[in-house]
Structure formats: structure tokens, C-alpha cells
């Protein structure tokens, strides 16, 4: 609130109304609905239902398959986050350094941001096509018989590559502007203090990027968990089979393919709790002064 804020009574309410109305109808109601239906087993057409208490949840926790999906999700998240951040940081550091063509590099490295995840997945299908995908061919050349859609590992690999490809640009943009917001004089002070560029990077630049990095860490985790849906759906060609999938994708598969409303809702609720935990964690860490100023 601004110190000299207006004290008009009705106007702010009027201004807030559209937003509140929309989120009430399209956010809170559905979220609540998801919670309630997670306690039922329901005929998809709505003709019958049984209250089953926590059964939908216990069913999940005892499901080997669900745990496997959860494990994959964690692994996927870790790998996608790590590689998108690492590559983006590498590019950002280099782009920040070079004199010539910096703007061209920036453009070339960021345009992929605008590519929709399913389109990225579609591109992945081309690149990893079993018969003639240029990347599959490349792998075959090195003796790796890459079979997207058959081999669990290969499919996971493709999912990760495409997801990383799609995410590097955002991270790149953030890292680059993070680098550029490091006061020039601090870098120069380091230049006087230390001859080695590598050491300067690890001693000064990297720690100063930590706030950006932390913010991106959370963003990337969220991305890996949710926004890769389109990539995974496309690469799975709608038939998951024995291919890897993430938790969100399983919500979709069970709810939308399988019409298991209760089970899918229970999964949604679990995800909600996960995101909530992640957010609390984020706030906690922010409180712990990752920010220096």
C-alpha cells in the first residue's frame, strides 16, 4: 500500500471484483471441487457415486506404478532443471563476455522461448524419429540404437532434451540480465583482486547470481513439473504404454483417458500440496537472505 493511498471505499472493491469473481469461479470452485471429488468414486456420467474416504489416496500410495511415476517426475525435474540452468548459465556468461554479435547471439538463444511446448514436442518427434530422425541417426552412428517410444530410457532422454531445449532461453535471459545487474565496479574490483577469470567467476559472479539462480530454480522446478505437459504428451503420442510420464501427465491420463475422476482428483490434490510445499520452501529460503541487499 502506498503511504498516500486513496481512502475511497467502493472503488477498490469495484476494481477488485472482476479478478475476484474470475478466480472464485475458475479457481477456488474447481480447486474445492477437486478436493471433494477425491473422496468419491464416481461414475463418469454422473449416475452413481460412492463415498470412499481416503481410499483414492491409499490406492495411490500403495500403487507401485504411481510411485514409479513420482520417482521419474523427481528425476526428470532434477535433470531438466540442472541442465537448463547449467547450459543457460554457460551461454549467458559467454554472451555477457563477447563484444561482437552479442545481440545476435541473444536473439538466437532466446527465440525458442516463444515455441509452444507441444510444438517443441512435435519438433522432438521429428528429431528423434525412429527411422530417420537426425538425432537418432547421430546416436546410431555412435552405436546407440535409439528407439523413441519403445525404450523407457530413450524416451525419457528425448523428453529431457526437448524440455531443456525449450527452457534454456528463459534461464538464459534471466542469467544474462542477472549478470548485467552485477555492478560493474564490483566486477572491476574483482579484476584488481584476482587475475584468474575462472576463479573470479566462482568467487564473485556465481555467488552474486545466486538470487537469480534461486528464483530460476523454483521456476524451473515448476516448469518441469507442469509446463512440460505438452512435450510429454506429444512425445508419448497419446499412448503412454511403458513410456515415462510425469505426475501431471498421469492426472491427465487417469482423468481424461481413463475417466477415473476420483483417482485423478486425488492426484490433483497431492500435486496441490506439493506446490504449496514448494512455495513455503521458497519463502523460507528467501527469508534466509539469499538476497544480498
Amino acid at each position, binding site marked *: 500500500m502506498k503511504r498516500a493511498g*486513496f481512502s475511497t471505499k467502493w472503488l477498490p472493491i469495484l476494481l477488485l471484483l472482476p479478478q475476484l469473481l474470475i478466480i472464485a469461479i475458475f479457481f477456488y470452485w474447481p480447486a474445492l471441487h477437486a478436493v471433494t471429488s477425491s473422496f468419491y468414486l464416481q461414475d463418469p456420467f454422473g449416475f452413481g457415486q460412492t463415498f470412499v474416504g481416503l481410499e483414492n489416496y491409499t490406492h495411490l500410495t500403495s500403487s507401485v506404478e504411481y510411485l514409479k511415476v513420482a520417482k521419474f517426475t523427481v528425476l526428470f525435474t532434477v535433470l531438466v532443471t540442472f541442465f537448463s540452468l547449467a547450459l543457460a548459465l554457460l551461454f549467458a556468461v559467454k554472451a555477457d563476455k*563477447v563484444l561482437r554479435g552479442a545481440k545476435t547471439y541473444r536473439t538466437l538463444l532466446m527465440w525458442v522461448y516463444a515455441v509452444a511446448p507441444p510444438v517443441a514436442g512435435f519438433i522432438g518427434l521429428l528429431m528423434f524419429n525412429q527411422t530417420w530422425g537426425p538425432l537418432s541417426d547421430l546416436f546410431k552412428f555412435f552405436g546407440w540404437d535409439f528407439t523413441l517410444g519403445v525404450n523407457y530410457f530413450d524416451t525419457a532422454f528425448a523428453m529431457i532434451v526437448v524440455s531443456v531445449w525449450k527452457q534454456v532461453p528463459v534461464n538464459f535471459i534471466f542469467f544474462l540480465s542477472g549478470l548485467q545487474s552485477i555492478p560493474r565496479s564490483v566486477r572491476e574490483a574483482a579484476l584488481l583482486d584476482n587475475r584468474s577469470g575462472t576463479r573470479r567467476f566462482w568467487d564473485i559472479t556465481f555467488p552474486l547470481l545466486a538470487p537469480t539462480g534461486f528464483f530460476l530454480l523454483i521456476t524451473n522446478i515448476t516448469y518441469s513439473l507442469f509446463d512440460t505437459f505438452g512435450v510429454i504428451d506429444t512425445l508419448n503420442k497419446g499412448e503412454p504404454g511403458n513410456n515415462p510420464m510425469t505426475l501431471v501427465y498421469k492426472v491427465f491420463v487417469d482423468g481424461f483417458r481413463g475417466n477415473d475422476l476420483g483417482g485423478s482428483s486425488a492426484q490433483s490434490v497431492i500435486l496441490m500440496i506439493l*506446490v504449496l510445499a514448494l512455495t513455503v520452501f521458497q519463502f523460507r529460503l528467501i527469508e534466509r537472505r539469499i538476497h544480498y541487499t
Partner: protein
Amino acid sequence: MTDISAHAHAIAQTRKRTWFKLETVFDHAILILGSLLMLLPLLIMLQTVTTPDLETMKLGPTFTIGTELDDNFRKAMFEASGFSGQNTGMNMLKNSMILGLGFALGKIVIGMMAAYAIVYFRLRFATLAFWLIFTTLLLPLEVRILPSYEIVQQLGMMNTYQGLIIPLIASATATFFFRQFFRSVPEELIEAARIDGAGPIKFFIDILVPLSQTMIAAMFIIMFVYGWNQYLWPTMITTDENMYTLVRGIKQIVQTLEGNNIPEFGRANMLALIAILPPVLVVIFFQSWFVKGLTESDK
């Protein structure tokens, strides 16, 4: 954010003035490699777009440029595959446009209004409103998609632009960004305006909105891209062919690759290219705004 070249420049000034330096060559090598990594798939798509489908089906991407470009373009843009004859590339382009623009505008207008109320008014329940609004940042649409879908159905908004757009607006990203931005607007401006006799509406229209121009532009770009790229939601909400968006159409593309006929790689890739092009152009041409919006509003 300062302009990159100028900045890089300033820092690079600190290097020795040698024309050929191994380190610099290495830096460029990495950047070129990265750029290629980003570009390669695009080039491959471009190649397939010019090549007859049968050839692609058998050989995959090659290094030759074929002659099918205009034919594939015609097919992708003007030929429909459905009964209604309405899901042409043109029509999907239109729908994507409406979704992108409508979403961006809706989000900005509603977000600005709400952020204005939260930042500039003494509201008793401001904190409550804040939390009500900002918890929506926590839960992506994906995890509450089923019930959301039902609501849209119950409200009879299936296959309408409202049904497509409004529920997507139900997360507070723009509100949050604008709140951050408004908070950074110097306190004195509202004070000067109040002393100058501007009421809340006048202040909003005369001062705050014009002041937010760059922020609005940045938000617009980000939201446009976000809206344009929506996939799962349009897939569920649009069942009329004349409501399909390009990205939703990708589903169709993949299915034609799965179907019984010769997979129309050319047409499919063309459509994918068309789906990529507008948001990519927006991002490239307005990159400074876009970057500003992304990096300044966040965190």
C-alpha cells in the same frame, strides 16, 4: 535491463585489445554451438516443408531444398481437414490470434485494476484480497483442469472465446507483476497528483496507465505468447473445428502422422512453423521490452 551490447561492451573493454585471442574464439565457439542447437530443428522443419511428403516419409530430412513450399503453405493455410471445412490454417491463425490477444488484454486490464486496488487504496481486507489472489499463483491450471472444465461446461462456455480465455485469466500472474511495478512507482507521484487534485480514477487514467506503458507492453508480449501457446486447455474447451487454435491443431498434426494416409509432414511442419512464427517474431522484435518485463517484474 541495459542494452546488452553496450554493456557487454563496457565489460569487454577491460580485456586486452588483441585481435585474435584463444579465449574469445572459444567463447564464440560455445555461443555459436548454442545458437545452432537452438536453430537446427527449425532448419530441419524448413527443409521438410519444401519436400514432398513421400520423400520425407522414407528418407527423413535431407540437405536438399525441394519445391513443395508453396503447395504445403497452401494446404496448411487454406485446406481444411474437417467436415465443416473450417479448421484451415487461416482460421486457426485467427483463433490463436484472438486467444493470444484476448488473453493478454483481459489479463492486463483485470490485473491492472486489481493491482491498483491493492496498492493504491486503503482497504481493510487488502491483505485478504492479496492472499486470495496470490494463492492462485500456486496452482497451475493443469492440476485443477477437470473441475475447471466442468464449470466451463456448466456455464455453457464450451466452444466460445470467453470459455477459452476467461478461465486462463484466473491466475494472478499479471496482477502480481503489476503490483510489483506499482510498488516501484515513486510514492511522490500519487502525492503530487493528489495535491494536484486528481481523484482515484483520474490518477489511474492520467498518470498510472501512461506510466505503465512499458510494463504493459512487456506484459502484453509475455501474456500473448503464453496465451498463444496454450495447449491442454484449448484442446479440451474447443470441440468445434472452427474454434481450433494452431497449437491445439498440432494435436491434429500428430494425429495425421498417426493416421492411415501418408503422413503429411510438409503440411504438418508448415502448420507448426506457422504456429511458432507469430510469437517468435513478437519476442524477437520486442525483445528489449520482453526481457524487461520478464526480469524486472519477477522475483
